[in-house]
């Protein structure tokens, strides 16, 4: 038994937030300069009434159409989000109904950020190998824009909203090989939305501005950039090493590295640290930004469109949790 990726599609919300538009909100700030460093020119942002399930359905409909998938063959829905429509029910259940999938499908959400797509592949592969499902719809859908404070210029520059849909099946164009997974919950405080859930349901209204004039509030997404950067520098090289080990490969046998597209600045630094030549390291964030769990599937789709994927492709996701996951995909 083997598990493959059989199709990838993605959806971006209609509204485009350009650097020109951002600079209107932050006239004192050299948004062009910072945007050049982090490699993002524009990002897409959902409308007020557009939620994770709406984007999930649109991405899945694109996948079904593009790959001519018979929806009655889909037997599992895995949906990764940290911005669900509701506490309950599960977003994947809403998606089953709206996609008119058979009621015999299994469906569940899982809450992960930047490592979510790779984790989703590991779960989907497990379902195939165990004989539980044969055609798994793996969706990532994130509306981080709803977690951001309007004055949070750094994060509003980096993050974009998006959803992706991937079909994992018993045949396809990329075999899902072995995984390396990891977790370190001691980093939880460094990327967090503290209020709104049940530990602290009420808004705290404790907004302050730090020494760089960035808003810090329990009611919005907080990211300690330098701590996340340090985590990445320390753990991503180990993740790549362990992923190679688990796949009995050496770095020279990898034809393309597709990492979570956190920001170009960090990716460049990681690439140099890992001594990966630029042509073997895929970047795709200029027009979408950091779309959290959707960055890897979006990048895989675009790289495939450019005919840049063949043989061993190493994917790696890392971030909020902390949580990280790597895998090798073997392209036909």
């Amino acid at each position, binding site marked *: 038994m083997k598990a493959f990726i059989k199709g990838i599609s993605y959806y971006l919300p209609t509204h485009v937030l350009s650097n020109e538009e951002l600079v209107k909100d932050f006239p004192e700030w050299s948004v062009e300069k910072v945007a050049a460093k982090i490699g993002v020119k524009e990002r897409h942002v959902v409308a007020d009434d557009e939620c994770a399930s709406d984007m999930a359905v649109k991405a899945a409909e694109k996948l079904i159409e593009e790959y001519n998938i018979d929806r009655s063959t889909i037997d599992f829905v895995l949906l990764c989000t940290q911005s669900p429509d509701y506490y309950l029910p599960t977003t994947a259940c809403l998606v089953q109904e709206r996609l008119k999938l058979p009621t015999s499908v299994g469906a569940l959400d899982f809450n992960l950020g930047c490592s979510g797509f790779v984790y989703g592949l590991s779960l989907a592969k497990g379902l195939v190998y165990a004989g539980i499902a044969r055609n798994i719809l793996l969706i990532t859908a994130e509306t981080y824009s709803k977690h951001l404070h309007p004055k949070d210029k*750094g994060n509003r520059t980096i993050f974009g909203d998006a959803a992706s849909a991937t079909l994992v099946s018993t045949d396809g164009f990329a075999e899902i090989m072995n995984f390396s997974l990891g977790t370190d919950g001691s980093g939880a405080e460094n990327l967090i939305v503290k209020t709104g859930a049940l530990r602290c349901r009420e808004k705290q209204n404790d907004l302050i501005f730090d020494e760089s004039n960035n808003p810090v509030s329990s009611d919005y997404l907080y990211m300690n*950039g330098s701590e996340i950067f340090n985590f990445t520098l320390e753990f991503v090289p180990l993740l790549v090493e362990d992923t190679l080990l688990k796949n009995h490969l050496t770095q020279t046998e990898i034809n393309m590295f597709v990492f979570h597209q956190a920001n170009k600045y960090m990716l460049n630094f990681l690439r140099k640290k890992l001594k990966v030549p630029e042509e073997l390291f895929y970047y795709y964030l200029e027009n979408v930004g950091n779309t959290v769990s959707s960055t890897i599937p979006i990048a895989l789709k675009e790289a495939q469109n450019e005919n840049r994927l063949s043989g061993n492709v190493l994917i790696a996701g890392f971030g909020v949790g902390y949580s990280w996951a790597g895998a090798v995909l073997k392209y036909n």
Partner: protein
Amino acid sequence: MEIQEFINCFAAQFDDTDPEIFKAETKFREIEEWSSLTTLAIIAMVDDEYKVKIKGDDIRNAQSIEDLYNIVKSRM
């Protein structure tokens, strides 16, 4: 490790600031170009050049380039 070498590496992280202004006693957070992204550049430079891990708090707690130099030196 020489402090002048550290100052040069520190100055190289800035695009628009005259390298001549960087001295041991320079209060780097008062440099106009300083931003949260520069913090990451300094962390990356220290990791790359000196194989030493510093945190955002180390940078926040240092006033001058020399303060930071002493932190890096103490961890080598």
